[in-house]
């Protein structure tokens, strides 16, 4: 009797497992499918794509597509270099100054500390898009449109990163180390750079990945500020593909998309372990 009940339970759990794995595999395929189509089609000629839009066998027209693509407005090199400059600059500033600000909040007792932290929490979720009109007009007046600094310098004030850095300090940074460094006669700024920063490395690395990717993917603000072709970032280059000149050049469009996605693919599959862990960390703790 008992034995029978057990097998019934096992049967049910086996059926459950089959359902779970089926759903997960379908979702995994759904995640990859569009990118597989994209990569394969970037090697196929436009007539081939028009005959059969889906194929899993690469063709031999990669070079032709490249010629069509770069013969027009899309310039993958310019886009790539501009995106690297902006993302690198913004990430370095955001991570360094956010850690510094978090340290000011964590390590020192000052009168306005609590109000300052409250303000950071309050403005954390305000997106830049809703202040874009004022931001653009301000930048226009001081001649900073078509200037990468207008996209890099605002990164110094990143409330979200400050918040996470502070959370990390609460669990990982012991002020006794700071106190003993003080006894050894180290200055406060030197303590921060020499002792606090190395301790904060894991948190800084995680936040750096996300900051870099966010800046790399950003479209709205770069699109309104950068109007000259030589300053276009990768996402702005991608937006050119919606223009009429690429309307029927499917092979070239798929190739352009592949080029814009490939750097992120490589970064993601190398760092995926840290990225997934980082996303999980991003949720608030109860």
């Amino acid at each position, binding site marked *: 009797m008992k034995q029978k009940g057990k097998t019934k339970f096992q049967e049910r759990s086996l059926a459950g497992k089959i359902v779970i794995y089926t759903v997960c595999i379908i979702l995994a395929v759904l995640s990859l499918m569009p990118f597989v189509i994209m990569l394969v089609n970037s090697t196929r000629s436009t007539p081939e794509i028009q005959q059969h839009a889906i194929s899993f066998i690469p063709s031999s027209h990669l070079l032709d597509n490249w010629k069509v693509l770069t013969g027009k407005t899309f310039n993958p090199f310019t886009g790539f270099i501009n995106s690297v400059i902006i993302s690198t600059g913004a990430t370095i500033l955001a991570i360094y100054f956010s850690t510094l600000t978090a340290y000011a909040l964590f390590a020192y007792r000052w009168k306005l500390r609590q109000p300052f932290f409250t303000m950071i929490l309050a403005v954390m979720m*305000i997106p830049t898009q809703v202040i874009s009109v004022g931001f653009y007009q301000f930048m226009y007046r001081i001649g900073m449109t078509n200037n990468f600094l207008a996209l890099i310098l605002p990164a110094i004030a990143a409330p979200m990163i400050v918040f996470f850095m502070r959370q990390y300090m609460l669990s990982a940074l012991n002020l006794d180390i700071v106190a003993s460094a003080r006894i050894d006669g180290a200055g406060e700024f030197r303590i921060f750079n020499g002792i606090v920063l190395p301790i904060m490395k894991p948190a800084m690395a995680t936040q750096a990945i996300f900051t870099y990717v966010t800046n790399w993917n950003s479209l709205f603000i770069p699109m309104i500020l950068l109007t000259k072709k030589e300053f276009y970032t990768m996402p702005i280059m*991608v937006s050119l593909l919606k223009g009429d000149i690429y309307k029927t050049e499917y092979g070239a469009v798929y190739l352009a998309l592949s080029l814009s996605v490939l750097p992120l693919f490589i970064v993601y599959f190398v760092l995926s372990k840290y990225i997934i862990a980082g996303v999980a960390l991003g949720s608030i703790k109860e």
Partner: protein
Amino acid sequence: MLQKSNKIRSVSYSKYGYLFSIPFILAFLVFSLYPTLFTVIIGFTDFKGVATTSFKFLEEPFANFVSIINNATFQNSLVNTIIIWTINFIPQLGLALLLTAWFTRRKTKIRGQGAFKVLFYLPNIITAASIAVLFAAITVYPIGPLNDILVSTGILKEPFYFQNDPWAAKLLVAFIQFWMWYGYTTIILIAGVNGINPDLFEAAEIDGATPSQTFFRVTLPCMRTILIFTLVTSLIGGLNMFDIPKLFIWNGGPANATMTTSVFIYAQAFSNKYLYNTAAAASMIMFVIIAVLSAVIFVLMRDKYEVRAKRELRRRKRELRRAAKEAVA
């Protein structure tokens, strides 16, 4: 004595707190606060036109706000934004909860969880602009990959013009958003479940609860905060939805079906109308909606212990005062 030396130390170092916050505060004032105030001001002026820099305040201060609230395209874009967000979020949360329940089962471990998570999260990290253009290419009429699949498998008799049908366009934008974000939500929720005290699950198990009972009676109630957090952050993100609706179908789609508020603001101010004043008014309306939602997150994210400690402190003070009064009486 000890007390005193402590006090001296804290006083002498407090200036570094200010010093180290200066870069942040300066950047915030210049690049966030000033543009915000400037946007507010522009909302009350007659400021429009390319390459103009002068403007004057309107005689009727709220004229821009009135005109934008009565603007049919703006109303439509607000409704679109909410519809697209809702039909993306409900299935997204449902699927994320289902995956969370599966991946956090205590008895039957799902193999390959790590790989599944990596794949589910993948679309989130890819440039939204590229994804929008990619899906536009996939759903193109008449010979895109989607039509190719649907026709060759016999689901459709002939190709369907997805980008020309208002509801199909809306659904596709919602689907792209869903596809990009369910992995993120799943990972956040799994982290939330892993943060719950395991004793609770053990107790449920001892009491003979089934997995689904445990999930609905133990796991879900413990995740209230994190669910509200997910809901509100997703809503704020959804209200700013720009890249996908902007690039999936250029400028609003069929009958403006995929025109969201961000796309509307962009079209008003930056594409060729240069109506900075009404764009600013629309931005401010969105700003207020988002600020109210942010307030919810603010309350959630405050240090709980600090809040509790403060409340305790106030209670004690009150008691002390009452005791003092009674003593005097």
